[in-house]
């Protein structure tokens, strides 16, 4: 094998690969979110009859996973590479394996497995069947056929690939700490870019974030979502659902949400997400049915 790809080169390679397969290459969504699936290009575009093929990097924030930069495998901020293909192509597994080959994984020496892992997002009212893809026992990708989103059947079903970029890069570069990853080919490491960020943000998430402000923010996001729904701007409504979801995650990290309350908060976010999806479908149905007369909710 040639020199292993740097972190950024790996991303560029994936961009090239999926662009060649007909994907729209998007840039990250400019909001804080817990997973690439929250990106409207996934959530909202998974609904409706129109074909949609997109690939993008999405920064993800998981406040409770912060480890102050001290754990070599856990981060409160990391990157996911998302591919969404609708309808799911019949050779999706091979397309995916092609992308692994492109970033330098040699199938004659590594053990790739598709291990059952059904995906469910209680906050998005979404579920799908699929696998976690293992490379030598390490989960490198979540591979899902969306069945429902926001409580609505996906018609047609979209295939979603979520690559854990840091893990994959650690694997390819054979390093034991995420901070030792070569970010580029000129000696900049992942640690140079993000270590200080992890330290400060872990402290903020766990110790500093003002809980009153967070609670207030949550309430405001809920109200604003309802305002948007009342005024028939479902994309804007959905953004407020994303915001509420992240504020809830921060409140969790601050340890101020009791076990009993937790379900209620998740239910609240789910209602916002579902409401946004419902409004999105209602808003788009005339357009969709003009192009696809057969299609119904």
């Amino acid at each position, binding site marked *: 094998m040639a020199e292993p790809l740097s972190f950024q080169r790996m991303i560029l390679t994936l961009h090239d690969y999926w662009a060649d397969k007909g994907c729209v290459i998007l840039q990250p969504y400019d909001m804080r979110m817990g997973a690439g699936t929250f990106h409207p290009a996934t959530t909202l575009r998974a609904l409706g009859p129109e074909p949609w093929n997109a690939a993008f990097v999405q920064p993800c924030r998981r406040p409770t996973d912060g480890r102050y930069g001290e754990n070599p495998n856990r981060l409160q901020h990391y990157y996911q590479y998302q591919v969404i293909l609708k309808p799911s192509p019949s050779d999706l597994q091979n397309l995916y394996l092609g992308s692994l080959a492109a970033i330098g994984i040699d199938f004659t*020496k590594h053990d790739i497995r598709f*291990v059952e892992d059904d995906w469910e997002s209680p906050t998005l009212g979404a579920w799908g069947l699929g696998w976690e893809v293992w490379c030598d026992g390490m989960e490198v990708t979540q591979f899902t056929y969306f069945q429902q989103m926001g409580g609505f059947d996906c018609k047609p079903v979209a295939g979603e690939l979520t690559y854990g970029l840091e893990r994959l890069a650690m694997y390819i570069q054979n390093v034991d700490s995420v901070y030792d990853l070569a970010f580029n080919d000129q000696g900049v490491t992942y640690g140079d870019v993000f270590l200080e960020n992890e330290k400060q943000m872990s402290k903020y998430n766990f110790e500093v974030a003002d809980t009153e402000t967070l609670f207030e923010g949550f309430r405001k996001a809920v109200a604003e979502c309802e305002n948007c729904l009342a005024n028939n701007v479902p994309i804007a409504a959905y953004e407020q659902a994303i915001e509420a979801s992240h504020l809830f995650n921060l409140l969790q990290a601050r340890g101020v949400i009791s076990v009993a309350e937790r379900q209620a908060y998740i239910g609240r976010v789910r209602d916002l997400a579902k409401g946004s999806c419902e409004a999105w479908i209602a808003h788009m149905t005339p357009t969709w049915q003009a192009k696809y007369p057969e299609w119904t909710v």
Partner: protein
Amino acid sequence: MSAQDFLLELRSEEIPARMQEKARADLAALFEARLQALNLPFERIESYATPRRLALIVRGVAEMTAAASEERKGPRADAPAQAIEGFLRSTGLSREQLVERDDGKGNKVLFAVIDRPGIVAGSVLASAITGAITAFPWPKSMRWGAASSSTESQRWVRPLQGIIALLGDKLVPVEIAGVKSASVTVGHRFHHPGGITIGSAADYIEKLRACHVIVDGAERRNIIALGAKMAAQKAGLTLIEDDGLLYENAGLTEWPMPLLGRFDEAFLDVPPEVIQLTARVNQKYFVCRDSAGKLANAFVCVANIDAADGGEKIVEGNQKVLAARLSDARFFYETDLKTRLEDLTPKLEKIVFHEKLGTVADKVDRVAKLARWLAEQGVVKADPDQAERAARLAKADLVTGMVGEFPELQGLMGGYYAAAQGEPAAVAEAIRDHYKPVGQGDEVPTAPVTVAVALADKLDSITAFFGVDLKPSGSKDPFALRRSALGVIALILDNGLRFPLAQSVSKDVLDFFADRLKVQQKEAGVRHDLIDAVFALGGEDDLVRLLARVKALQSFVTSEDGRNLLAGYKRAANILKKETWAPGEVADNEIYEAEPAEAALREALDIAEPKAEAAVEAEDYEAAMAALASLRAPIDKFFDDVTVVDPDEFKREMRLSLLARIRDAVNNVADFSKIEG
């Protein structure tokens, strides 16, 4: 006409490992039912599953179904037109096709003769394939691809990729979800990604083997079992066998290659159960023991490829993953050790046990009081302070990081943490084992403090849920109270606890225990009629005594004395029933003289009755049975020599009352009328 073999392969994207065995059996069962319903004879069905295919071979399929002819009687030829039309509609024939026959009374009656020619096997099989796929009972199934624009599109466990359907060497044409049957499949995903043409059922398994696919799951399991054992042996270790892992790994591989890897010895500071669970649950690895019987710093993973470098990179990768997992586990363990268990208990106030029964903290409080009471009352010979202490700490591990990560380690981790913070061994052990026994066959605690806490925990759940009327009913037992009851029964019986349950629980809980005990004893092979015979006595709430009686009865009724006594008892009871005898006043007959056999029986009863009674009192049921056994010979002699139903009213009365004494003496030990035979 010659029989042929039929091959079906349903190829899909990876089928979850846990579903494969059942899917294989379901496919065979569906096919068998369909071929039988369609009258197509065959010899037998074999079925196979790998991650990427379900396969089925039907051996000896007949060329066609048997032809059949059916006659249906219709209305008379002169019946109203409406009636005839109705008959035509129901048979699908025209008037000209009907046959007229004389009914022997001079009437012409219409008959429809319907010939059903044999159907060729190919078309029967095609319909069976479609039927089986449509009706397949996957636990979870999905839609995919462009067809999923409709929610009515064909569902399968994962996208269906190919169908092979060959009868002999001929293709059986079917099309399902846009997939047309063919004779081409694929081999191992990486070793042989190209197409393979299958000739017939005869070469299917071997052709795939040549392309790195072992079709038979049992063979893959053997390869893994043997390979993993050898890999451990080569490293001087012993594999810890695990059937669940064997099935799981066989369900994740088409070409299994067991490989041994190592982890840093420093991780062995973490409890071995944690290491084993991390390896098994997260990574599906086997673990090994060293020659001293201790967990070794090695694991066996099962790759799905014969790697070009012998598996070096694969082992390296897996070692890294496990190391990261174990670091996490160690982090949880070390973090947990920093907090004393009693400091965690406030968190239990925030966990709802059940909406009607308060929090886990409330439950802990009840269990602690009950455990102390059991010890103070002497039901369990445990130190009351230790019993209460253990109960108060027993649930604290529920809020530790480790149990949050691995819920199945509840109890066990509490035990480790208790020992680490210096609790007495008996307390730590009680915390560790207080959930036991979990299900039949699980180890039943015997250490007194453990028994007190285990018993209190289960009794509390049962009485608490019964108290708010959340009892098990039918197949519904959401709080596993039946299992708890069996746990209570096992704890009482195995430890010989003298615990009059009626003092502590309500009537319905007591009946619930009686029911469970019956079920448990039946499952243990005790004759149900003997159980009924003892339970019919009623009023017994001491399980140890109850069971001792059942046991004594069982050995007694299977002995010759027992069998004969039972026969004598039944004869006596039958006569009494027939004569509708009830004790009454009968004028004394001065001249009555008992016959010798009669006098002998009375004498025997005079001796046996108090003996049996005393023995029952002393809970010596063997002795009670022995006392009854002494009646056997006098009873037999009595029936041989004496006419019970004598015309003389007084004699009859005396003899019937003697029979009543036999019946009552026997029933005092067990209700023999419930015993069969």
